[in-house]
């Protein structure tokens, strides 16, 4: 079985080296030309743009959620107002006066007041 090395290590021992200094330097075997560089930079810019767009879209998504909540609040407020109106109508004097309870009431035959 044989295999190829894709990474080459160049020993630095031939050169002057000092303590705590790497003695092996990395050098990629893949060579990138100027056009590849340009394409890569363009791709990175595109990715950044996409990231920006996704974030901006996410903010818009919040807007839709907020708008939906706002609509719901309006609807509930409207329902609350309607219930308040209904409550006021049910406790209005005419309603109370015409209620079955009021109709069943009788006038006292004799009333006496006590002076203080």
């Amino acid at each position, binding site marked *: 079985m044989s295999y190829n090395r894709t990474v080459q290590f160049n020993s630095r021992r031939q050169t002057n080296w000092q303590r705590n200094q790497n003695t092996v330097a990395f050098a990629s075997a893949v060579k990138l030309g100027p056009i590849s560089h340009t394409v890569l930079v363009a791709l990175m810019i595109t990715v950044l743009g996409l990231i920006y767009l996704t974030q901006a879209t996410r903010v*818009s998504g919040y807007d839709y959620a907020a708008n939906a909540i706002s609509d719901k609040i309006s609807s509930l407020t*409207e329902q609350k107002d309607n219930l308040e109106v209904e409550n006021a109508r049910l*406790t209005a*004097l005419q309603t109370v006066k015409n209620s079955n309870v009021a109709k069943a009431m009788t006038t006292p035959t004799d009333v006496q007041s006590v002076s203080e």
Partner: protein
Amino acid sequence: MELHFSPGSRAKKIAVVTLAAVAIFIVRLFYIQVIQHDTYVAQADKEQVKQFILHAKRGEIYAMDGSTPTKLVMNQTVYTVWADPTQVTDKNAVISALNSIAGGNVRDNFAQYLDMNHSRYQVLATKVTMQQAEMLKKKRLAGIGFDAVSQRVYPEGQLASQVLGFVDANGEGKYGFEQANDAQLKGKDGLLKTVTDIRDVPLTVSDKNIRQPAVNGQNMVLTIDRNIQAETEQALAEGAEKSGADHASAIVMDPQTGKVLAMANVPTYDPSQLNKVTDVAQLNNDIISAPYEPGSDIKTFTVATGVDKGVITPSSTYDNTGQIKVDDITINNATKTAAVTGNITMQTALNWSLNTGMVTIAERLGDGNYITKQARDTMYNYFYNRFRLGKATGIELANEQQGVVISPDDVQGNAVRYSNMSFGQGMDVTMLQVASGFCSVVNGGVYYNPTILNGIVSDDGVFSEAKNAGKTTGVITPATSQVVREMVHEAHYATYNPHDGSDRYFVGGKTGTSQTIKNGKYINDQTIGTYLGFGGATADNPRYVIMVEISDKDKSMGGGSDAKPIFNKISNWLINYLGLTPQK
């Protein structure tokens, strides 16, 4: 990076062409993005930035229910259902749905509007409730739209309608409290300027968004007590029907504060059904808008002036011959019985409402024999400056009229005029002015500016009482007030004692039957009946003042026969409602 091309190579040509194309793009983009920047920004804003009005909620109006504010005018969102006839695909479905769900709110023959293809907006139904609108929306009818509209609703029906006024289609308050307090009730609309998507949903991705929140109108509380108001309206309607009168008015006030507790007129109207009002006069609140000659009610003011100036007491006497001459005019009494002829007291003159007694007081304010300039100045000072008859009160209601009390400095302010004024003719005043002035007569001499504004209710429902509307002390002395209260109390029972138990309290009042002018002359076959009185548990603490007026065209309405029964009904009911302690 350095590119090397062979001279004349195709690569070089492609590079040149590409560079040229890129240059064109750059120049074009520069033109669009830099030179035309503002134009395109404006164009984009026009399409993307929308402006919405945030409508302020109109303040609600409350009345008092005892000591608790209760809602009298509220807001409710209703819907206008409209159609775009060009988009309606199933007319039968629309007609069927509207008839079954909003049958009572559709326009007459609304189906015909579905055929008007030249228009894209035809109203089919109005004032549709939220529930009805939801049911219609579920039908998913093509070409049908809904507009939300806020409208005033009146849970108490037509109670106090002429006090309240109404709100017109433009949201403007008209008549009554709504008009006079329109600015406070209306609030201030807000503004929302924002980038929107295609469905007009506001988006936050812009630095141009503006949001100015709406400021809702104030919730305002009237001094009107809904129980007193309802009782007053009922008593008034029954009294007018019994007397066969087409018009009657009544006001109830608290003499210790100047607060109006009830204010009612017959006929009235239902503010939620304005389309049924056939006579615009029904919208007026005559108590503040219709000055008239008040008649004999004013005798209480003349007596108060005489007592306060020290020219009479209840037991002062004068010779009553049934008539009295002032310059070239002879003034007669309405009552000519022998029992009140001869040497009688001022109390008797008040009890029997004798004009001669009041003219005598006016004369005694002068030299004793004639209504001199000094007498007229004194009367004017009391009537106009102190009791404020003929002066607008400034009550928080629209269309208040001030009336006319002619000054003695005016050429018409002569002795004849002032002799008439002593018994309530020859001047035009409103019922509110008379009732407010009478409050100061019976409460110890303090004039409280009449008010109908009791305070405000915050959005949290907290009631804050309004500042006092203002007062003037020393209108008459407390001693004078006490004397007049006793005199008016006696006058009330001199001609009325139905044994209904009211004599266990301290009730007083004075009739008024005023002639009206027809073709420039006073006539007796068209009179206005009024009654002005007060009540309380004890003599020193009047708790309410009531004034009633009743009239009809070409009919004679009497103060005692027509207005007083209405006063009594309201007064007796108030005694119970206020829980006054009987004294006997």
